[in-house]
């Protein structure tokens, strides 16, 4: 299969990006600075990410909100224009088709952002399950997306746009605003655990926006960051990644996303299965390594002399400074302070269940 390129491919080559395959795209895993410095830039200054590989779907029609409430586990009944809301999307078995973010557009339509690797699957799933008067349209190729993440993000963005174009609150967006002469959706969201923005721009102008942001951020410590840092940052912030903490066979309740599953809604796809299953027998937990070694995904976890689950993601977390993992374990082992052992390539490394996230930004 031929790999797709985002509108920023040439920019990555110019910036010295090391390109790898991800979700069917050729993406930078890191630049010359390396993953650790890119990670630290986001926690202490600012980082710039190409996230154009994400998919965007517009849902419209008089029955759009009813469809959202049926397709997704979160409740979309009350939503202000420009507001964004995260939700898992379940299959009939209560497993997870994808996790996504829905924005209410100023014209009443809905803008849905899905994972790159699930784009075709999601569009098919949504279209197969639409009822009444509603239409879903995949607009992914029209948009580029850039994430500007870190404590200096607002200061950098302020150099390119007026204050009224910058959303004050997290999970809010300003629609069709001028940023450096480019019409953008300016959303205060991200996947790093630090403050920041995600900017959606017309595909043909995304490279110009990238260059403008890099220039505006040069004296604020802004550097381009690759998928390597994106992964270590989201892990440090204990954010689930589809294919790791969520899958067709992992329910959002197992993944600890109960807050986004509104069981009091009249109905949604997967509700009956989640009700029938009752309290999840396994739960996602955070693990901090106590022994020496780096925890990785797909490692067996033991306690009381038996296998109690496995890790789903793991790495050395650069900002908090210790190796951490997320794991799906038998529910009785989820209490913080519980000691477990992780099989790290044949060697048992001691670890402790800790509260997630590993990193939390100061208010």
């Amino acid at each position, binding site marked *: 299969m031929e790999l797709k390129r985002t509108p920023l491919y040439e920019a990555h080559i110019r910036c010295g990006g090391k390109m790898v395959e991800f979700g069917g795209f050729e993406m930078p*895993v*890191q630049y010359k600075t*390396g993953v*650790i*410095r890119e990670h630290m830039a986001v926690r202490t200054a600012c980082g710039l990410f190409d996230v154009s590989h994400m998919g965007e779907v517009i849902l419209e029609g008089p029955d759009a909100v009813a469809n959202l409430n049926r397709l997704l586990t979160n409740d979309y009944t009350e939503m202000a224009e420009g507001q964004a809301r995260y939700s898992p999307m379940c299959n009939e078995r209560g497993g997870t088709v994808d996790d996504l973010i829905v924005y209410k557009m100023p014209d009443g339509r809905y803008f849905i952002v899905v994972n790159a690797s699930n784009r075709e699957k999601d569009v098919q799933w949504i279209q197969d399950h639409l009822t009444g008067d509603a239409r879903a349209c995949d607009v992914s190729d029209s948009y580029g997306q850039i994430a500007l993440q870190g404590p200096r993000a607002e200061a950098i963005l302020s150099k390119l746009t007026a204050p009224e174009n910058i959303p004050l609150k997290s999970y809010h967006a300003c629609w069709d605003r001028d940023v450096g002469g480019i019409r953008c959706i300016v959303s205060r969201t991200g996947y790093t655990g630090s403050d920041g923005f995600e900017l959606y721009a017309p595909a043909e102008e995304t490279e110009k926006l990238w260059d403008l942001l890099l220039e505006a951020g040069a004296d604020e410590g802004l550097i381009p960051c690759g998928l*390597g840092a994106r992964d270590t940052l989201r892990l440090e912030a204990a954010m689930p990644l589809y294919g790791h903490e969520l899958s067709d066979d992992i329910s959002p309740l197992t993944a600890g996303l109960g807050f986004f599953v509104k069981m009091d809604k009249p109905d949604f796809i997967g509700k009956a299965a989640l009700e029938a299953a009752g309290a999840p027998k396994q739960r996602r937990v955070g693990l901090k390594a106590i022994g020496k070694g*780096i925890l*990785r995904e797909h490692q067996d976890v033991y306690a009381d002399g038996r296998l109690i689950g496995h890790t789903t993601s793991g790495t050395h977390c650069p900002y908090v400074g210790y190796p951490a993992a997320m794991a799906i374990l038998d529910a009785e082992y989820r209490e913080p302070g519980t000691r477990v052992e992780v099989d790290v*390539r044949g060697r048992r490394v001691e670890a402790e269940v800790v509260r997630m996230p590993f990193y939390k930004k100061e208010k």
Partner: protein
Amino acid sequence: MHFPKELKYTKTHEWIRFTEDGKAYIGITDFAQDQLGDLVFVNLPEEGDALTAGESFADVESVKAVSDVNSPVTGTVLQVNEELQDAPEKMNEAPYEAWFVLAGDITETEELMDAEAYEAYAASEG
């Protein structure tokens, strides 16, 4: 990228520096550390462990992945550079000072390249 003339190199990107008394320091090359990215952990053998030419004796971990480090010689570990465990970034910053082990009792050595041959080999891999 830098490949000191006084060292020998393996196809699996280790360097080896023989001492006058027939022992050898072993580490990973500048090319290897550049390809691996930021190193955050090293799993080292213990003093007295046996080394086998062409087989893994240590592993290094970057934020993204684990990689084996192979021994260019068959022999015994005389000394381990424990400092790397506390400062794995030394392997990135100064790969030719960041030796892993000092090997002795060497009975066999793998086929090695000189700096010039290794540089050409690394360029073809990179």
